[in-house]
C-alpha cells in the first residue's frame, strides 16, 4: 500500500497493429461517411425503388388503359374511363364505404382488445408470464392465413362453436357475411395491433405511473392523462396495420364473408372473372388513396411528434 507499484498490465509484447487490406478498408469507410451510407443503403434502396415503387407506378399506368370488351385485349391508350367509373359509380361508393367501415370496425375492435392485453403484459405480468404471452400472441402468426380463415369458417358455421356456446343464452352466430368477415379480420390482425402497443407500453417507465398515482390520480386518470398519450404512436402503428390490411383483404372475405363485396374482392373478380386488369388497377387505387389520407390525418394530429 505504501509504494506506488508499477503493476500496470504488461501489454508491450502484444502484436503490432497490422495494416492489412481489410483494416485499410475499414479506415477508409470510417473516414468517408457518405461512402459508408451509400453502401449501407444501396440494397434496400434498390428494392424499394425498383421493385416497390415501380410496381406502384405500373399499377397507376395500367389504370389509364382499357380493355377491348369484345376480344378482352388490353388497349394501350390513355383515357380516364376507369377512373371516372370508379369515382362516379354508386356500386363503388357502396363497396368503398363498406370496406372503410369494416377497416374502422376491425381497427376499433383490435385496439379495444389489444389495450388491456398489452397493458397486462407490459405492466402487470411477471417476467415469465410476460414471455409466455408474447409467444402465445406470436404463435398464430406461424399458422397459415388460410388455415385460420377456414378455422373461423367452421367457428361461424351453423351449429358451430359460436352457436354451441351462445345458443343457450339466446345468441347465434352471425353466419357468413359482413359481421363474420369483420370478426375474422379482427382476429387475424390482432397480433399486429397488440405488439406495437405492448412495445410502446414497455417504454413507459413504471415510475411515471407511480408518480401519477402519488399525485392523486386514480387509475382511470393515470391511464387517460399519462399512459394513453405516451402510447398513441404505438396505437397508431397498430392501427395502420389493421386498417390497411383490412382495406386490401379479399381471401378472408371470400371465405367467411358470404356474398359481401369489398374492394379486395372487386379487384379479385375484375382480374380473374372479368379479365379487366385496368379496371382492377383503378379500383385498387381507392384503398391506396385512403391509406394516404389516413397517414396524412395521423400526421396532422401531431400524434407522431411524441415518438
Amino acid at each position: 500500500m505504501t509504494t506506488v507499484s508499477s503493476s500496470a498490465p504488461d501489454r508491450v509484447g502484444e502484436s503490432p497493429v497490422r495494416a492489412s487490406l481489410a483494416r485499410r478498408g475499414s479506415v477508409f469507410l470510417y473516414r468517408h461517411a457518405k461512402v459508408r451510407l451509400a453502401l449501407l443503403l444501396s440494397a434496400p434502396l434498390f428494392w424499394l425503388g425498383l421493385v416497390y415503387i415501380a410496381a406502384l407506378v405500373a399499377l397507376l399506368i395500367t389504370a389509364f388503359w382499357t380493355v377491348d370488351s369484345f376480344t378482352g385485349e388490353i388497349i394501350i391508350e390513355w383515357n380516364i374511363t376507369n377512373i371516372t367509373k370508379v369515382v362516379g359509380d354508386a356500386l363503388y361508393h357502396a363497396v368503398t364505404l363498406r370496406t372503410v367501415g369494416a377497416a374502422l370496425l376491425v381497427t376499433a375492435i383490435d385496439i379495444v382488445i389489444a389495450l388491456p392485453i398489452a397493458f397486462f403484459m407490459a405492466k402487470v405480468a411477471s417476467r415469465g408470464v410476460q414471455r409466455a404471452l408474447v409467444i402465445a400472441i406470436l404463435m398464430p402468426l406461424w399458422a397459415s392465413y388460410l388455415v385460420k380463415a377456414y378455422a373461423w369458417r367452421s367457428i361461424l358455421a351453423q351449429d358451430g362453436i359460436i352457436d354451441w356456446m351462445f345458443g343457450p343464452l339466446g345468441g347465434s352466430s352471425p353466419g357468413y357475411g359482413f359481421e363474420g368477415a369483420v370478426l375474422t379480420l379482427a382476429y387475424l390482425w390482432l397480433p399486429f395491433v397488440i405488439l406495437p402497443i405492448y412495445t410502446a407500453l414497455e417504454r413507459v417507465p413504471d415510475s411515471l405511473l407511480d408518480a401519477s398515482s402519488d399525485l392523486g390520480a386514480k387509475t382511470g386518470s393515470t391511464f387517460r392523462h399519462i399512459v394513453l398519450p405516451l402510447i398513441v404512436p404505438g396505437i397508431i402503428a397498430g392501427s395502420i396495420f389493421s386498417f390497411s390490411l383490412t382495406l386490401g383483404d379479399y381471401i378472408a372475405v371470400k371465405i367467411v364473408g358470404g356474398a359481401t363485396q369489398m374492394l379486395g374482392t372487386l379487384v379479385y373478380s375484375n382480374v380473374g372473372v372479368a379479365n379487366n386488369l385496368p379496371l382492377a388497377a383503378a379500383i385498387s387505387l381507392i384503398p391506396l388513396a385512403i391509406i394516404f389520407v389516413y397517414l396524412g390525418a395521423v400526421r396532422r394530429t401531431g400524434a407522431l411528434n411524441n415518438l
Partner: protein
Amino acid sequence: MSTQPAIRLTGLTKSFGSVNAVSGVNLDIAPGEFFSMLGPSGSGKTTVLRMIAGFETPTSGTVELFGKDVTKDAPFDRDVNTVFQDYALFPHMSVLENVAYGLRVRGVKIDARNNAARDALALVRLEGYGDRKPTQLSGGQRQRVALARALVVEPKVLLLDEPLGALDLKLREQMQVELKEIQRRLGITFIFVTHDQEEALTLSDRIAVFNEGGIVQLGDAEDVYRRPQTPFVANFVGTSAVFTADEAKAVLGHKGACSIRPEHLEIVRGKAPAGTIGLPGTVAETIFLGASTRIIVDLDAGKRVAVLEQNDLNTTDTKLGTKVTVAVYPRFLAPLT
C-alpha cells in the same frame, strides 16, 4: 394533536420471495421534522419509502399517517408525495403542466391550477420555465420541477428518494441548502433517503441508519456521528478506528469495545500530553486532502489507525516511516454495544 407523529411505522416488514428487504422497522417521525434514512445500497431504504407512499404493500406491520392507519390505502388516497430519484417527469407535458398535474386530477380549474403551479415554480426558482418540455432542462432543473410538482398539492409529508444522487457536487450542495430552506419555510415533514453520510449529517434533524433491512441506529446528527453504537455505524457514517473489547484492553487499557474518529486523534512527537493515552507507532501512509492530511499509523501494539491532521500554520511534515506517538483523548472514545 401535536404529540401525534406524522408517520408511525410499526413492525414494518417486506419480503420479495425469499429476500427480506425490510424486517421489523419501528419508527416515529414528528411533524415538521427533516428526517433522513441513511444506509448502504440494498439496505431497504427505498422499500420503506415505497411502503409509506403506498406503492408496495407491507408483508406485515402497519403505516400510520397522523394517527390514521393507511397500510391498505392506495397512493392517491395518502397525504404524502414523492420526489423520485429519476424525477419521473411526464415527458409529453410542459413543465407547467407537470407541476399542475396534481391539481388537475383533483379537478382544479385551469387558471387556478396554473397560478398555483407558477407559484410553486417560483418557490424552486424556476420562473419562466413553464413552457419548456422536461427534456429541455438540465438535471438540476428537472430536480426542481419534480420538487415543485410534489409540493404544489401541499402534502403533509414529502418523501425524497436520493433526490440529489444524479447531480454534481456543486449543484448538490446548492440544492441541499435550498431543500432545507424550503422545508423550514413550509414546515412540512421531509423524509430524505440518501447513502451520502455527509448529506444526511448536514441536513437532518434526525437520522436513521439502515443496514440489511433494519434500523441500526437512530438519533440526531451528533448522536450518530459522535456516539456510533455499532462498528457498522462507526464506519458507515464517517470512518473510525474500531477496537474490540480485547484490543481496547490490550492497546488502550480501556474497558469494553469502542471506536474513535480520526480527527480525535493527534500525532505528537515525543511524549503524549497529560490526560491522554500515548500510543507509539510508525507512519505507514499519508494522504493529502487539501485542508487536512490523513495519516495512517501502524501502532507498535499491532493495530492500524487513521489520524486526521489539519493543515494549519504549525503543521509539521510527517514523512513515511517516521516514529510518532498517537495521542488518544479518552473522552472521545465512543463505547460500542
